[in-house]
């Protein structure tokens, strides 16, 4: 077995049995990549023209040999709530690759994400995906018929939009910060398998 595949398998063996990853669908797409769905929400699909229960936050794990050294790549993507997409169509999904992330970083990140996603406050990350809009009328619990143009809608939900951007920045910054710190460490090769 290639060392990259073996290293990825070692990660997955730890992840699948770790409590922080409970209830998260984990799967291998091919020997070199694995997917973890961190959270799902009912979001409007511009492909099917229907509301679908889709993954809104996703992690792809890959391990590659760069300059003779095994390097891990963590791709994190976060989808913007449907209601806000029309405000900024080019910002539907933010997706970035990070290298030198340790297993411990990944576990801490998932804990941080879940704290944001499922906190009991009204402005949890999950709640931002359930704001009624003209696409999901009737699906949200606090159903209110959507009246007026998008500008009015956006004005009503400016606070939530800002909150979403704030959450997103925290999540991406976490990986960015740790990627930088770890790249300076000498023993990253060892850490990345063992965490």
């Amino acid at each position, binding site marked *: 077995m290639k060392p990259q595949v073996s290293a990825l*398998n070692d990660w*997955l*063996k730890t992840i*699948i*049995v770790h*409590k922080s*990853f*409970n*209830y*998260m*669908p*984990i*799967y*291998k*797409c*091919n*020997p070199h990549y694995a997917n973890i*769905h961190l959270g799902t929400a*009912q979001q409007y699909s511009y492909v*099917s023209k*229907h*509301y*679908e*229960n889709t993954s809104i936050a996703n992690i792809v794990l890959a391990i590659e040999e760069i300059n003779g050294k095994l390097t891990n790549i963590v791709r994190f993507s976060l989808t913007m709530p449907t209601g806000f997409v029309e405000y900024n169509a080019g910002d539907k999904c933010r997706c970035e690759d990070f290298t030198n992330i340790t297993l411990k970083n990944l576990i801490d990140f998932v804990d941080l994400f879940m704290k944001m996603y499922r906190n009991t406050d009204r402005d949890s990350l999950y709640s931002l995906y359930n704001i009624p809009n003209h696409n999901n*009328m*009737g*699906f949200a619990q606090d*159903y209110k018929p959507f009246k007026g143009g998008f500008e009015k809608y956006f004005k009503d939900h400016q606070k939530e939009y800002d909150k979403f951007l704030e959450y997103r920045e925290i999540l991406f910054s976490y990986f960015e910060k740790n990627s930088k710190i770890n790249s300076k460490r000498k023993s990253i090769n060892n850490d990345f398998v063992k965490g």
Partner: protein
Amino acid sequence: MKPTTDALNKWLQTMLINPLFAHARFSKSNSGDAHIEWEFIPRTVKKSTGYNTSMVPALIINIFNLKKNAKDDKFVHKVLLTIKTPDMFIANTDNYDRDDEYYSYFNIHLKDLVRFKELCDEQFDKIRHLYFKDVPYEPAKSKEVYCKEYREFLMFKESMFGFFYNCEKINAKLKDLKKDFVKG
């Protein structure tokens, strides 16, 4: 760690990295049960203001770890298989879940699960198209065609449930089940 949790973890670690289970989605619950789903198909669900289509798993395997059997001090585990019925065969009902059939089996080994996945991949390919038909069923089609396709689906379902049924019967006679359950 409880021996049952440890045993389940070993199963999951083996299955997740097995190429046969590529694309199958694994998740574990807090109570130590596991969920494997694959073959995602479109399913229409009636909501308050209309119909909502989602990609849902057509096949689901749940693995439950039960406590030691008081009588013979053996580990007991349960494998539950759920097969969703294609929308076109579900008529005049708003409750789509009603026609999803599931049965549970005891004494299934890890190697049985691997063999099941292999068999299922092969068989499901033949009936996958039934899940992608328009709903309601095209009226232009004759009743014979409808019945033929329905029979195909029933045969698929029978062979899938039948597989676990046979494994359960055979394994129940094995003496060394405890060892097998962990090692597969």
